[in-house]
């Protein structure tokens, strides 16, 4: 993966992380929060190459 794209993905992951932890303090695992965490996981897989079987949390 291109280095610039990697940086962009990582910054989006961090932005989502901030939004998620802010929401987690205030609310339950709402559908909106679920979508954010799904997006974050999809992006994390791209930079960590984690689409293997034994990746867990």
């Amino acid at each position, binding site marked *: 993966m291109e280095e610039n*794209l990697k940086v*962009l993905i990582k910054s989006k992951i961090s932005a989502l992380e901030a939004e998620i932890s802010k929401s987690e303090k205030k609310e339950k*695992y709402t559908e909106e929060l679920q979508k954010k965490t799904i997006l974050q996981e999809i992006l994390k897989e*791209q930079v960590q190459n984690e689409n293997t079987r034994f990746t867990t949390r």
Partner: protein
Amino acid sequence: MKILVLQLARLGDIFMTWPSIRALHRKYPNAEIHVLCRKKYASALNGLKAVSKIKHLPTQEIIANLTSVKKSSSEDVLNVFLQELKSEKYDLVVNFSFSPLSSRLTYFLASETTKTIGYTRHSDGFFNVDGEVSAYFYAQVGTQKFNRFHVSDLMASMIGVDLVSSDWMPPIINGMTLDLPKNYIVVHVGASEEHKSVPAYKWGKILNSFLEKESQYAVVMIGSAEEINKARAIQTTVLTGQVIDLVGLTEVEELFAIISKAKLVLGADSMAMHIASLTQTPCFNISLGSVNFWETGPRANNSLIYRVTKSDELSADVVIQGLFSILRKVETSSFVKVITQGGQTEYISSKKDPQSFGWQLVKSIYLGEKRPMCDDLKFFEGILKMNEVNQVSIQQLDAVSKVGAAKVAPILDRADEVIQLLGKVVPYMGIISDWYMTEKLRIKPGHESEICKEEIRIHQMMKNLLRSYIPEDLEAEANNG
């Protein structure tokens, strides 16, 4: 009935999922089965008749929209995908992916009318290993573990079925003619990860030796486009015989056709081997490094597994011995032998099994079998230490009603850290600590008293487990503080 199967792993894992998807179809013959996979691996589902729809995770579209100047954002792309998935109103979602992402997708799709199987989340978003088989998978499957159940069998157990011979079949391929010699063996030159792969110079040595001795056979090399250079490097070192290089040139359907007509498949733990399990083509599997053949090994009858710790230790002569043994149907005790009958596989080795205690201990915990004997002093010391820590946790949990959870929580956290540390440093203790930590993950969110009750239940189970290894006098001493 509508079922969604989540399989977001790579080609080999998708092929290992085929039998369970067929079994699911056998269990629910009128169900419509959809599979969610990654676009780049979707071809691995071609020809699987039990699947009526293949859905793709829109990863590339999401990434593309991160940089796009267009109005639609990554969030919009994901929203459309998730809403479309939800609108299918699945009755059952089976998560065969065992990943964080798949656990979140599974939870997103769960509802009163949509049941789920496999990794999911608790209602507060925490990871949840739902079900006994998923909990087993989470705790005991993977590298450096002692599991000996095949991943395909574990998937079948998740959906409550036993695999049968007809679950292990290739797709029906019509009208494909292969321009290949009558007698050939297939060599998969690569593997999904470098550490599982045989280096090019070793392949050269093996193929030279094989073709020199067995001139009636040709060698067909297969692999992905990323392995083209490796295949070229191998071919330059082969001085005799016929080597046909198809690396980077084959579609999945062609691989099925090539492998089904081969006399054997030679390679590391890879998708070619998993295809061979479906075509019932015997494999000579070079099981390298941390690969656990018990959980992902070949399933075709009469396959052989050659276990090697490092690629430097891989002997070309031993590989040749194994190939001859399969091709000439000569018995050998040098390898792990694969015996498959009625869809069930056994791995048989005549060598001493140094990890037998670990597997016996796993079975005693999960299947209720007798606790195995151990003569490792470090293990007993670890048991005593873990028992001590467990006792402290029980005492703290008993005190919650008087002093409140906030006061005991840091002590419990510290106790868990020690339990995990013991699991890491003491031989075989990881089996117990991983079981324990996984059981704790399964505790649902709830009122303090409910959580406390569940915690005590797990610590009592732990106490019973540990006491099997503690002499009575020491146990009495420990209980008296």
